[in-house]
Structures are given as C-alpha cells and as structure tokens.
C-alpha cells in the first residue's frame, strides 16, 4: 500500500528536509523573552489568546461537537479505535526521528518495533498489536526535542483550531509537519487517508472526552485559565520536568 520512491531519496528526504527546517526552527524558536511568574504562567499575548480561545469554543459548539457526536454514535467503537490506531501508526516514523534527535536510543528502537509490528501483523496499523505485546505508546515530538536542546518554553499561545500551545511547541509542530517521513513515503491518494484518519481520530477523542470537556471547560468560570493551566502542567510533565519541590504543603501554610 505504500508507494516507495527510490530507496535513496526516500531515506534522504527527511534528512534534507530537516536541514531546510533548521533555520526555520531558529527563527520560530526565537521566543518572546521572559519567564513564567510564580504561578508558572508566561502569557504576554493573553488578550489575543483569549479571543482565539473564545472563537475555538464557538466553532466547537457549532461544528466540532455535533459532528463528533454523530461520528461517535454512528460508527461503532472498534472501528473508531481502528481508525485512531491507523492515524497514530503513521506518526511513529516522525516520533522515531525525534527519539534519535534526542539520543533516546531505547525509545527509538521501541518505537521502530511498534511501527514494524503494527504495520504488518497489525494490518497497516489498524490494530495496536505491539501495545498488547507490552510495547505501549511512547510519544515524542519536535517540541520536546527543542526542550532537550535547551530552547526555552516561550510565551503561552492559543492556536486557531489546534488550541493551547507555547512558542516552543508551535515551532515544534511546524517542524514535525515538515520532517514527518510518512509524508514523503506515501503518495496520493494514500496520504489523504492518513490526513482523513487524523481528523477522524480527533473527532473520536472529542466524542470520548465529551463529559470531561463539559465539566472542565464548559462548566468552568474561567475556561481559558483552566485550559492554560491544564496544558502547561501536563506538557511540563511530559517533558519530565520535576515539580515536586513546588508542591504546596497545606499543613504548613494553614498553621
């Protein structure tokens, strides 16, 4: 199902793209100077961010939620899971590239095996066979690579459609898009299946976490503040930043 270009260009293309991408990284990762305050937040573009957050919620209510609910109701769960697995599998080569860029050799091998097993026994990635074999998902992305290389987090950003991010993570997303090897290995129409599966995966997630979104975002008195807090805390956790020294001891405070 994959139309390979000549082996030479297929293997070299991501590398050459990375070289093209590097100056871009330097450009985009030239973050707004400043550091998070005591609340862990650096949000100099809050006004613009808040307005994008508000329009995202309007789009969600008008389009995304109804479509995702239809998708979630009409398409049975095992099929949705298959589509989601298929989309995740296509991300694996890009994840391996980032594992290598961060010298995470064990993860690179782990994810290469995942890709090999799921692409073959897992029927082009429809089934996460590797996960059931004890090789669970180990995510990675270029935002983390930038962190590993010492780039600062930068300002908090709300991206249109994509939602919460930071300057560093936005730069990472751009680079991940450019260097993703699957984009160069697949030709149309196969590459469109990948994009379509990714959109469906997002819709499936939206449906699955509908209750959570309702309580965390739609019931919140300040959904912007909650989304920002959740994103930054979770992202720093993914980056392996130890925050245990920042734990509040309520027994100390109240005495």
């Amino acid at each position: 199902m994959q139309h390979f270009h000549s082996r030479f260009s297929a293997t070299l293309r991501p590398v050459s793209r990375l070289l093209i991408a590097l100056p871009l990284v330097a450009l985009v990762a030239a973050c707004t100077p400043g550091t998070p305050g005591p609340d862990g937040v650096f949000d100099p573009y809050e006004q613009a961010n808040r307005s994008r957050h508000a329009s995202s919620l309007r789009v969600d209510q008008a389009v995304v939620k109804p479509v995702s609910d239809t998708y979630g109701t009409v398409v049975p769960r095992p099929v949705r899971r298959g589509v989601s697995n298929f989309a995740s599998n296509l991300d694996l080569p890009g994840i391996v590239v980032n594992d290598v860029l961060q010298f995470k050799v064990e993860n690179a091998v782990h994810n290469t095996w995942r890709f090999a097993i799921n692409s073959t026994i897992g029927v082009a990635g429809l089934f996460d066979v590797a996960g059931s074999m004890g090789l669970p998902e180990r995510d990675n992305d270029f935002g983390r690579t930038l962190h590993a290389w010492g780039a600062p987090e930068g300002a908090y950003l709300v991206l249109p459609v994509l939602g919460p991010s930071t300057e560093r993570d936005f730069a990472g997303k751009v680079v991940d898009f450019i260097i993703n090897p699957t984009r160069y290995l697949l030709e149309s129409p196969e590459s469109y299946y990948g994009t379509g599966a990714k959109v469906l995966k997002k819709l499936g997630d939206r449906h699955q976490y509908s209750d959570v979104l309702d309580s965390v975002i739609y019931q919140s008195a300040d959904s912007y503040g909650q989304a920002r807090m959740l994103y930054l805390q979770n992202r720093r956790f993914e980056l392996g930043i130890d925050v245990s020294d920042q734990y509040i001891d309520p027994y100390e405070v109240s005495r």
Partner: protein
Amino acid sequence: MTRKMTRRDFAAMAASSLLAMTMLGRPAAAAISPSDAQGLVQALVDDIFRVIESGRSESAILKDFDGLFAKYADVEIIARQVLGADSRRATPAQMRAFTDAFRGYIARKYGKRFREFIGGRIDVQSAAKVKSFHEVRTMAHLKGEAPFEVKFLVSDKSGRPRFFNMLIEGVNLMLTETAEIGARLDQRRGDIDALIRDLRTMG
C-alpha cells in the same frame, strides 16, 4: 447532641479519647512511613474498583465515590486551601457548607469518568517522602489507552493518613481547583454563599 453535656460525660469522653490516642492515634511528630502511605493508596484503589465493578447505576456510584473521598481524603484541608485567603473571612458554618459542597463537586467531576476505568487497573508502584508528606506513584492502565501516571500526596497531619492532593499526568488537582474556585468566586463578586450554591449543582 442537643443535650447539655454533664461533667461526667465530659470526663468519660476525655478518658476515652485519651485511651484512643494512646492505643490508635500516634502523636503528630511520629510520622507515617512511605509504606503506610502506599498502603492507604492501595486501599483507596481497591475500594474505587470495588465500586466501579459493582455494576450499579451512575448516581449510586457517584454517591459511593463521595463516601470514598470523605474517607480517604483530607477534604477539610483541601477545601480550606482551594478557598485560599477567602477561607479566613468565611464563618465556620460557611466553611462547613463549602467543604460539603466541594466534596460533592469533586466526587461528581472526577467520578463521572468511572466508565473509562471499567476493565482497567491502577498499579500502586512506589512511595517517597517529599517535604513533610509522602508522594505515592501509581500507573493507570485503561483499556485502549497508553498507561499514565497518577500521583497521590499523603499526610497524617490531620491525625490519620489521608491524601490531600492528586496529580494526573502532572495536572495538579489542588492548583487547578484553586484557580477554578477563585474564578468562580470572582464571578460571584466574592459571595461565598452563592459559590456554595453553584458548587452543589456543578461537576
């Protein structure tokens, strides 16, 4: 409890509480060990899964979670902490009402996700001392999802070991709820009673 307390009642109560303190309670200085903290979280996890797998209705399950939260968490200290500086101007009656409403709100908000846990498991992995309390690490293995980390912060400063904070993949429950409760109170122009009414229907 409306009956006036006689001197004899008081003496009996003092004696029994003294007895209870020597037999069960430890003085505040003798802190619990990491394995005590881990044991508490293990008992909590066992109870959570007993409730989830009971196959009862959602409302019955949420009610059970409310009970588990009251049993295993130091809800008083969490409620005081999330209310922040405003807890100092709250009357004792408001504080009690807020604590009750907050407990129900958290039990509903987090308990509603119980379906994701059906057929899954939580492995309690390790405990370590941090500051004056213990951090207990667990891994949640849910169906169709990559395993993720949930941490519980456990202290016995209330008199017995209970958890006072939880971090789900790095998301700190106490910090998140402090921000949320603060925003809600601002929206209500600092009216604590209005905040309590809101919490009773939320989650």
